[in-house]
């Protein structure tokens, strides 16, 4: 296990002229966990990451990695591995050369570049110019770049964009293994569903403001519940729902009851002597929560 630095963002604010892109943002990212940095497109995620990485100067506030700003780190490329966008390549340079260009400053030998290309599955394409790479290949190359220095802090901006489902599953495992090794992992996404099986913690922002930060489990608790119920007498089940003033829908596999625990539905049905063949807590659709949490902030400022 490595002791990885914690990321601490404190009262971070960024103005672009009259527009406040990031507004008094405060959150921490703990080592040994994967933190999802979530928000709709244009909500200030990339701006925040660029401030964290020393590319943008904050209007006020701080973004520190292990107590230091990015530019104060001795060898930032060896401590922090970051992939910001899939378009930061010279199209005329080969994938291998893209990594070789940055290897000296990160402080790793060229053999590390070969290793990583193997690791991300680009060995066969390493001598081809990046201009001919697909979006998914570029994402893999960006990831290889981020991992060059075997960093203990990993920051990825929308890493699932352009990856095929296989690639997404591979990425998910990879991020989980980084967290298991004790690394600090921050992953941004505008689609909660993309990361909901990967992250431990979530920070949700909208219009540059933090609107939610918790563990994924706590966020899930905010989700609307769906209980799927079925039995030989569907009419009685729907009667039960009406009597208890539950919200319900009829579906072809039975009745769906909203915002009630399955245990309560079961108890009430038992008390009413209704025979049930199925009583299932359906997986919460977190995308819906995300929308709901995000739209709370939609009121004009």
């Amino acid at each position, binding site marked *: 296990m490595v002791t990885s630095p914690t990321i601490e963002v404190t009262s971070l604010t960024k103005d672009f002229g009259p527009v406040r892109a990031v507004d008094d943002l405060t959150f921490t990212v703990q080592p040994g966990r994967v933190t999802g940095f979530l928000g709709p497109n244009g909500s200030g995620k990339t701006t925040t990451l*660029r401030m964290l990485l020393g590319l943008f*100067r904050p209007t006020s506030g701080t973004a520190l990695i292990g107590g230091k700003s990015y*530019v104060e780190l001795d060898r930032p490329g060896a401590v922090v591995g970051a992939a*910001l966008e899939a378009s930061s*390549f010279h199209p005329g340079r080969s994938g291998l050369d893209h990594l*070789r*260009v940055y290897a000296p400053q*990160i402080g790793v030998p060229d053999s590390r570049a070969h290793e990583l290309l193997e690791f991300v599955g680009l060995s066969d394409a390493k001598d081809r110019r990046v201009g001919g790479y697909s979006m998914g290949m570029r994402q893999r190359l960006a990831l290889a770049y981020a991992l060059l220095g075997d960093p203990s802090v990993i920051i990825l901006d929308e890493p699932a964009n352009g990856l095929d489902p296989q690639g997404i599953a591979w990425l998910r495992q990879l991020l989980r293994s980084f967290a298991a090794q004790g690394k600090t992992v921050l992953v941004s996404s505008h689609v909660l569903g993309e990361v909901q099986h990967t992250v431990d913690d979530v920070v949700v922002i909208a219009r540059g403001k933090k609107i939610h930060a918790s563990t994924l489990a706590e966020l899930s608790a905010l989700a609307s519940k769906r209980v799927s119920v079925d039995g030989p007498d569907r009419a009685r089940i729907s009667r039960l729902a009406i009597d208890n003033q539950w919200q319900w829908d009829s579906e072809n596999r039975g009745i769906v009851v909203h915002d009630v625990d399955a245990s309560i539905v079961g108890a009430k049905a038992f008390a009413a002597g209704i025979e049930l063949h199925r009583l299932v807590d359906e997986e919460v659709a977190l995308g819906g929560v995300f929308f709901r949490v995000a739209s709370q902030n939609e009121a004009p400022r």
Partner: protein
Amino acid sequence: MIAAIKSEFRKLFSTRMWWILAIVMIGYLAFVGILMSIMFTLLGDEMTGGAVQGKTLAVTIYGFINPIGYVFPLLIGSLLFTSEFRHQTITPSLLSGANRTHLLLSKLVVSAVVGLLYGVIAVLAMIGSSAPFLQILGDGHYLGDSEVWKLIAGSLLVFVLWTMFGVALGGLIVNQVAAIVVILAMTQFVEPILGLVLGIPEATRGVAQFLPAAAGNAVVGSNSLAMGTGMGDMLTRTEGAAVLMAYIVIFALLCRFITLRRDIG
């Protein structure tokens, strides 16, 4: 800093632009060298009344290396910066090495080396194309002459300076298309015309010699454009180099405190 320089070398030599530009430069200089050496050895006496011949002719023709060739080191130098912004590789560049002053300095160091390489190539192209004709059709190639060797040394130095100039200029005008247009316009139209216009009246003649191209000619030690007319004062080699250095320092400082202070992304 050593690592940053190594990265910069790899950036330049891992794409094709450096040798494509070098080939175009060889072609252009060789074309001018052949054309000029044939023209002047066959028709020179009629054109200049016998004023330009022998060693003067050799030095004059070899001296075309600066006014004809300097666009190439400027371009390759400017690309060191503009391609980073064009392809947004400036982001991984500043992530792997966050010190922005080191970025600028390592580009200047690399450009000096590349400038020397371009200088060697340019000298070979210029002299290689013209010396045989001077020898066969004219009074000789004068390659053993110390004045020619000073011209060669001056050519190498001026190519180093032009490439550094290109880096500093590219760091200020980071839009690649804009930088190329500015360099082509300056080298092909504005400076030659400005040099002529300013060079004729007594009052502005002093100013004309401080234009970059004129300072470059001074470093080489051959004012080809003013050849045979007696017009246009020229700085000494050292003064010319100092003037170009001053341009480089000013543009580099502007690059550091304007371009590299900005948000990147």
